[in-house]
């Protein structure tokens, strides 16, 4: 579904991604871990099409198409979804209003009929259960005055409504208490299917107790330095990132 080859990206003059290679198949859940500043979030934003990051080398093939050529809205319509680490507050626009515009743009792109208000609300009600969203919350201006947990739940709720093929969760667990974390994880698990793939970006192993990944990758200094199964996450939790740093530094000459 997704093939990232030798991806380099920079912000301003700082190179942040320095050769990412990653292949994700439908039905798989990949966890991407790494210390602060390693490039995890940059990877997520580059995949979603953020223009402030400049891709300097490499390619990303999504469903056989060149993802990097598409503007962000086209990626969304093709089925790429990013759950933001810091969802944006937009006073004056309700979640339902903006989501209906999104859903119908995506449906139109896929050759489906646009949903009318009644069908849309019926679908929304169904998806609200996914993350125990409150009706009052989605009628309110988008994320305005939401708690951290409510914002993250809103992201997963939107994922449910927009029905993507590739979901990228950017530190969806950060700042959540255990109850909120469980709700979010349940929502994500309910969404797993053989047709979908997920990239779960996280700093902590904790989330992976609830969302069990098929693969775990560790990003360090803009590269994936280690890949493995779910046991790798536990190892990282136990030893921290420092042992890996040491290992990478020793191996650096051969990688370079």
């Amino acid at each position, binding site marked *: 579904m997704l093939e990232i080859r030798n991806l380099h990206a920079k912000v301003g003059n700082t190179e942040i991604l320095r050769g990412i290679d990653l292949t994700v198949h439908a039905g798989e859940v990949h966890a991407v871990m790494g210390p602060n500043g390693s490039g995890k979030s940059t990877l997520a934003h580059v995949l*979603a*099409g*953020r*223009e*402030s990051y400049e891709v300097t080398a490499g390619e990303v093939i999504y469903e056989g198409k060149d993802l990097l050529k598409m*503007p*962000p*809205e086209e*990626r*969304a*319509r093709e089925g790429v*979804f*990013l759950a*933001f680490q810091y*969802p*944006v507050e*937009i*006073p*004056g*626009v309700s979640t339902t209003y*903006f*989501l209906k*515009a*999104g*859903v119908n*743009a*995506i449906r139109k*792109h896929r050759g489906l009929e646009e949903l009318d208000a009644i069908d849309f609300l019926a679908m929304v009600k169904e998806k609200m259960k996914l993350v125990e969203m409150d009706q009052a919350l989605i009628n309110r*201006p988008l994320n305005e005055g939401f708690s951290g947990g409510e914002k993250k739940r809103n992201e997963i709720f*939107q994922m449910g409504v*927009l029905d993507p093929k590739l979901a990228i969760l950017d530190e969806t667990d950060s700042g959540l208490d255990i109850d909120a974390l469980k709700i979010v994880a349940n929502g994500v698990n309910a969404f797993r299917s053989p047709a979908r793939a997920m990239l779960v970006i996280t700093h902590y192993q904790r989330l992976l107790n609830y969302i069990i990944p098929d693969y775990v990758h560790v990003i360090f200094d803009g590269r994936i330095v280690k890949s493995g199964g779910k046991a790798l996450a536990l190892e990282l939790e136990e030893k921290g990132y420092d042992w890996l740093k040491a290992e990478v530094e020793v191996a650096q000459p051969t990688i370079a």
Partner: protein
Amino acid sequence: MVVTSSKELDTYLSDFELFEKNGATKGPSWIHQIRKAAISRFSELGFPTTRLEEWKYTNVAPIAKTRFKRAECEVNGLMAEALARATLGESACAQLVFVNGHFSRELSSLRSLPEGVKAGSLAAAWGSDPASIEPHLARHASYHDHAFVALNTAFMKDGAFVYVPKGQVVELPIHLLFFSTAPVGLAHERPGTAVVSYPRNLIVADDGSQAMIVESYVGVGTNVYLTNTVTEIVGGKNAVIDYYKLQRESEEAFHIATVQAHLDRSSNFSSHSIDLGGALVRNDLNATLDGEGIECTLDGLYMVTGRQHVDNHTRIDHVKPHCSSRELYKGLLDGKSRGVFNGKIYVHKAAQKTDAKQTNKNLLLSEGATINTKPQLEIYADDVKCTHGSTIGQLDQNAVFYLRSRGLDLATARNLLTYAFASEMVGRIKVEPVRAQIENLLVTRLQHGSRAEDTP
């Protein structure tokens, strides 16, 4: 820089003589005295130049240079449609319609005014009911230091008079609707076809009364004309006044407006000023809080594009203690438009415990748009709480990306965020049909904006 030549002033002075000859003297002599004093003051003041601090960013030379003819009451073919779009229909208890400043009895409707409430032509009232008018007219809006108020006062002929008696509550809005129907044809192609009207309004809400007043200015067709309007609002003790001014003049029009509110103890005044039209627009909104415990709210929204210029000057005078004022003006500027905001809060020495907050927020939607914003506090009391601030920004790129990542295209995302910025002000409009009208105009304007943007 504007230098008013004596020739430009002479035009007005000789027009005033003509105005007096042709029946202006028929009015009561006290009106005549006020007019004479006002024209004499105008001849001393001349048109303001950009050398004056209050007019630094608004150059009225195009007005000074244009030869305006006083407008006749011309009901043209476009009126019916314009009326249908601007009317508040059944939602208003009275709708007074003025065409080029002249009261039109046929187009107006007075449905169900509560006991003792008066709403009608000011000219009729100063003849028949001088006791209600004389204590207020030209007592609040000073023509001594504002040339356009002086001109309006000199040439005032008609406008609206609204009186709400003691304790009376008018639940439905009273709509004052001013149409400008200047003869078709651009003034620079046919010199002498530009017209001017001088609407003059007086709104008096007696002690303990309550009223909603909606003042609309609508241009019919696309012509050069000047609306120079003055509204005086008098709020008695405990009076509640909700005032709306909707400016939708045609795109070639000049609109100069002064609203002066004088408020007594424990009254509550809220103003909503909305500017969408006009080529050159200047609003002066002044509120004098002349009693204790007054609450004053000034809301404003201006949305301009092309080469429009809109200037909002507000002044709140905290004269007595324990009053609070809240001011929020928001501006959306696109194209090569230019906005000016100058908000002054003046806290007099006696006005202890004043609680004043003033904010001006602007969104610049294009590189060519400009805003000059200047919040001002002048405080002569020592126990007060006053804050002010202004912001100028572009659309938040994070938010644009967020919306696009959900499938919305760039234009839709921008429009939605622009709408969101303005919607706070729209949401504060309490008169439902006014809110609906403004919302529709906003949405239409945004859709046009996005189309214009696609063509570089």
